[in-house]
């Protein structure tokens, strides 16, 4: 399948290795990967702050760039940005926006896409890991994706899923994390205190991971590896 990568601004600018892992995974699953270069951001930071016109301008640019490649499917390594386009974008640009109509029905979060177009991907992690999977809020509650990422991890030998407070918000919340840093950090601590039994923290939203990684490093818990789902799967399926 011809897949357009919606890499998201955060991955492009701060953690490109997640984008590389995503592209290679899709390639290994037999897809032809394209990267529509005109994409920037889904507009969510401004949208969540109440600045809708500003959000709409940026969203338009990204939708236009994605739609122009007319891929058969679009994949993003971020549940939150996927939600922005699938669920909230219509409020900003109207549900009759031609670019939105091309992109939204074909846009999938990575594990969601792999569930139907990459389930043959199996692999092994050596040494084995105890993985705490983080349910990011938009992905869990708006997209209803809880089974898919766990099944993707379940296809990897050497992964044992750890029990923890997976569904509670980590406290990132976009600009919330900088507007109210004390609260945001307290929320991270609340969640991370249940992490004891895992050696790896894994999620499908780079923003939450950036927040929790930053907190774990600051409190001296570097022994917990923080990895995006795409990175773990890429590592496990290396030829």
């Amino acid at each position, binding site marked *: 399948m011809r897949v357009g990568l919606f890499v998201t601004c955060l991955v492009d600018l701060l953690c490109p290795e997640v984008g*590389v892992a995503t592209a290679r995974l899709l390639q290994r699953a037999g897809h032809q990967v394209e*990267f529509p270069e005109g994409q920037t951001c889904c507009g969510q930071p401004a949208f969540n*702050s109440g600045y809708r016109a500003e959000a709409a301008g940026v969203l338009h640019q990204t939708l236009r760039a994605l739609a122009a490649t007319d891929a058969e499917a679009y994949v993003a390594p971020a549940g939150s940005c996927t939600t922005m386009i699938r669920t909230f974008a219509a409020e900003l640009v109207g549900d009759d926006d031609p670019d939105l109509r091309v992109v939204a029905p074909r846009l999938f979060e990575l594990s969601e896409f792999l569930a139907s177009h990459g389930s043959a991907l199996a692999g092994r992690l050596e040494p084995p890991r105890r993985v705490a999977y983080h349910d990011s809020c938009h992905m869990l509650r708006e997209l209803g994706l809880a089974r898919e990422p766990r099944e993707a991890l379940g296809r990897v030998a050497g992964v044992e899923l750890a029990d923890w407070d997976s569904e509670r918000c980590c406290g990132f919340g976009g600009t919330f994390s900088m507007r109210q840093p004390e609260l945001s950090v307290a929320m991270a601590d609340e969640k991370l205190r249940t992490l004891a039994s895992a050696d790896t923290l894994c999620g499908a939203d780079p923003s939450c991971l950036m927040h929790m990684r930053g907190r774990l490093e*600051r409190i001296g818990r570097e022994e917990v590896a923080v990895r995006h789902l795409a990175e773990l799967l890429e590592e496990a399926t290396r030829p």
Partner: protein
Amino acid sequence: MSAVPSLTGTTLRERERWALGGDGRLQSALRRTTDNLDGRRRRGLDELEDPETLRQTARSLRTAAVARLPELLGRLADRVQAAGGTVFFAADAEEARAHVLGICARRGAKLAVKSKSMVSEEIELGARLAEAGIEALETDLGEWAQQLDGEPPAHILGPAMHKTPADWVRVLGTVGYDGDESAPAMTAFARRTLRDKFHAADVGITGVNLAVAESGTLVIVSNEGNARMSSTVPPVQIALMGMERVVADWAEADLLLALLGRAGAGVSFPTYVSAITGPRRPRERDGPQELHLVVLDNGRSRILAGASREALNCIRCGACLNACPVYRQIGGHAYGSVYSGPIGAVISPLLLDDVPEAAELSHASSLCGACWAACPVGIPLHELLLEGRRREAAGGGDRAERAAWRAWAQAWSHPRLYGLTGAPARARIPERLLPPPLREWARGRTVPHRAGATFRARWRRGEVLE
């Protein structure tokens, strides 16, 4: 912890710091009580055969009732009056207070017993009665503790849920309790003390959970039976309700009561449900001689007319507070408003439109949506919080913030400018030289930095695919 901060003159962040700056006892009490109540809610709703369908049914019934609010309120008023009660529509808090005071003055009241009423807190009735020389005693155990402590309630349903057993001993000690932390002993003490007050009271003041338009019945729910005492023992009952509490008929009331009990306390039906239609009739043995209903607007018409109308569907169960990860950290008082938690963050800016500090309450949320998932009537609270932020930004917001978003939008609407503004993310900058938002980030977290080139640069160089 120091005294509860007031909304005026403080920022949300300052109040959050106040709540987070203690010794952690607040958070451990919140963790214990909200986990307990949220767990009860889950189990209570899971017992139902198809909770999601009931939730959707309740949502559409509430939406329909709110859509025909004037008509239902008219019918309710007719029926209440036909049953012998009086009805007063108060446009604002002052009208409501003056009306209540007028009734008390006419009866020469000295002592009023109150059961739990968020509306009475909203209109600050207690302080006004005290000024007039009327003792207004809270009879809900938690509210009583808060009153004795000089603190407002911290939760819609469990006003003193943040108090530890040791706090309880201290508080009850001020009115003569000399026992230990045993709940039965404290409860027995409260019962003995309050029972005399019920008998001596001139007026009973209650809230209203639901008002059934078709029969003119006020439905009042409590877990301790104090609402029933307040509404039947004193010779006069004054019932206060927000104008959105009206429901069309008993079928709607039946469903909402089942959801209220389960969502709020995990019980299949609330412990005490009083259904009051008019005052005592001839030949009846109990009930008040007079029943006065006060229906409060106080900003609700503004909510009704705007994009947050669905907030009026709320049945005040408190489930969204118990599920909220923000409430779990800061508790009710940090909101600075009578209504806390997600529902409070939605309605307080609208109810308090003359208090500029209230506008930013819509930021007391990470927008995680746990409130929406927990709400038994399916209110999309996270979307209403977003609506609040939109309203705040449109109303002027912060000038520097607006300018920053404009500049951001202009740059990131062009891939080339986006590339230029994004590129410096590679360098490691000393924290003291970081721009302000990142400095805030760095307070508790290491600052992320990119290893190597951006994704798009790697793509152009052909380094991405195998």
